């Protein structure tokens, strides 16, 4: 029952070095057998990967998905050089019909022309074998929450709040990149870390498995959206640079409090954590200025995310109460604040605040988290003081 393509498939896969199991590959060619047969056979070979009855696991066609642009390519080359490896891309000004392009020695990333949009962009080829591996692991590990087709409405996910991500919306919150979409590495890091305070666990799968899952998730982009949108921007995780407050953390917290309630006015959406009477001083306003009602509570904000066809609103976190989703070290918080949270009201602050202010905010938020974590009585006291303006 071996596919005639098996050997070739194996060769190709070895060449790209993402092969995890020769055995499993028997079933991943463009094999004419029915999907049910595949499911059956995979289930026999890999009993843990038994899919729900009738759910296809095999993807027979590869696809082109948007790749990051030149900046990333140059980064990759630099990285390779640092490791003493041959850079993967060479610049060719005559390529892409004279547009100029970086040529990928493996051929997996190409600058391609979209005729309808009259637009050149880098695209990445993802083959059916990798998509099938990704699909298989997705069904096994992700689908109970994210749904068998990635619609965020899996059996276990239906009642979860926050709702699991619907991958067809091609919007991702904690990618920590400045572009619309994250690079593969950024998405992989998110999966490996998980999202604290949500059922999105840190996934301890092999790097190869997560790579495959990421490719599969990207392939769920509808036509003209996400990784199938020629105009999509794909970026790496924002760089944190040097910490200007190293060794002066207490000053950072103090300064962060000033930035939070002053120039950045985080309390327009998040709670304010200082006595309202102190605000006019921080904001350079008359002493009798009246601030928003319930200043000690966050304000519900519109988002771009939809659940069952309805736009959902998102509550900006109260740092003394909610679990910070994507890391609580000053560096993590720096990355989140600097890059913003895609699809929500939270903007990117990098470039709009000085690096000192950004890091100070990160320290201040971390301090709020640590100060009141698992201390309900202390927090109640704080809330009372704020509410009563004491």
């Amino acid at each position, binding site marked *: 029952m071996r596919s005639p*393509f098996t050997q*070739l*498939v194996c060769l*190709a*896969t070895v*060449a*790209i070095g*993402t092969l995890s199991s020769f055995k499993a590959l028997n079933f*991943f060619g*463009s*094999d004419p057998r029915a999907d049910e047969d595949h499911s059956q056979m995979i289930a026999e070979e890999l009993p843990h990967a038994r899919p729900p009855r009738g759910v296809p696991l095999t993807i027979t*066609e*590869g696809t*082109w998905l948007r790749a990051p642009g030149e900046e990333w390519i140059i980064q990759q080359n630099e990285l390779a050089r640092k490791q003493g490896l041959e850079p993967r891309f060479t610049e060719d000004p005559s*390529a*892409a*019909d*004279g*547009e100029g392009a970086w*040529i990928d020695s493996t*051929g*997996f990333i*190409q600058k*391609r*022309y*979209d*005729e*309808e*949009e*009259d*637009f*050149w962009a880098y695209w990445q*080829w993802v*083959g*059916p*074998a*990798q998509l099938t591996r990704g699909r298989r692991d997705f069904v096994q590990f992700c689908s109970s929450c994210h749904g068998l087709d990635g619609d965020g409405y899996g059996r276990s996910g239906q009642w979860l709040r926050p709702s699991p991500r619907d991958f067809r919306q091609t919007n991702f919150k904690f990618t920590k990149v*400045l572009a*619309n979409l994250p690079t593969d590495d950024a998405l992989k890091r998110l999966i490996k870390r998980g999202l604290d305070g949500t059922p999105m666990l840190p996934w301890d799968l092999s790097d190869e498995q997560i790579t495959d899952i990421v490719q599969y998730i990207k392939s769920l982009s509808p036509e003209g959206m996400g990784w*199938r949108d*020629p*105009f999509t921007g794909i970026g790496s995780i924002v760089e944190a640079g040097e910490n200007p407050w190293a060794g002066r953390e207490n000053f950072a917290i103090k300064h962060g409090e000033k930035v939070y309630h002053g*120039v950045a*006015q985080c309390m*327009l*959406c998040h709670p304010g954590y200082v006595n309202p009477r102190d605000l006019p001083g921080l904001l350079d*306003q008359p002493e009798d200025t*009246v*601030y*928003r*009602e319930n200043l000690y509570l966050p304000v519900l904000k*519109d988002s771009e995310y939809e659940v069952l066809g309805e736009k959902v609103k998102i509550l900006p976190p109260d740092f003394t109460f909610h679990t910070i989703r994507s890391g609580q070290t000053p560096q993590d918080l720096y990355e989140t604040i600097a890059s*913003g949270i895609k699809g929500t*009201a939270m*903007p*990117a*602050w990098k*470039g*709009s*605040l000085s690096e000192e202010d950004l890091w100070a905010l990160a320290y201040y938020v971390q301090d709020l988290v640590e100060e009141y974590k698992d201390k309900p009585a202390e927090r109640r006291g704080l809330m009372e003081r704020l509410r009563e303006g004491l």
Partner: protein
Amino acid sequence: MNRSLIGLGALLALTACGGGDSAPKPQKSTTGSTSSSTAETTTTAKSTDTGGAAKASGSQDWNDSMGTATVSGAIKFEGVAPENKAITMSDVDPKCPGGAEETILVSNGGLANVVISVNKGLDGYKFAKGTGAVNLDQKGCQYIPHVLAMQAGQTVSITNSDDTVHNVHSYSKRNQAFNQAQPAGAGAIEKKMSQKDKSFPIKCDMHAWMNCQVVVFDHPFFTVSDENGNFTLPKLPAGTYKLVAEHESLGKQEAEVTVADGGTETVTFSYGQSAP
């Protein structure tokens, strides 16, 4: 979309490793037809001009001196203009002064903030990218202008004249969307709009009433009606054009107009209660 990517499945099947993960061989363009026998011999349907505009074959490069005709006119608003509700801002941000809604602005029977552009009739010309910058200011916790039309290649320079913070949340499609904070005193946010883009909003999430519309054209024949609803499209070449008027809440209208060299034609669009 991505019609050009069609045929890759076929290309793949023809490569030595059908069903495997090897990418189709590098090729010059994606416009290869499914009938080509191998990826290497894929023909490119695209012309070699660097602009990549396949439709531009036989067209000539546009320069300003070629246009001597003018289309001018007015956007009328029939009936009683809706009252623009006052916006109380201080309960959200005491640094915002308060204002009024500005979606429908009518003055002397004319409707402001309607984008008028030439939609059809320019196929014979190839337009260079726009240059320079256009300003979008945040002042009094509202956007100035409320409707901004620009040319692909131009930069939008977004400034904050207020003593408070805003976040500039762009919902552009063909140009990179962004959501960038801009505290008082922060420098201008400069975003190059390289591609034409249908009308999209820029909003501020901190001040929920703040929104404006931006549209990016791939030619220079567009304008926005002034406060009295008047507009002028100068420097057009002689020809017959489809003119489109677009208002953010009242929708689109079309008109056909023919102008001769050196001539001026007048077009009137009519919105409002009695409009169709």
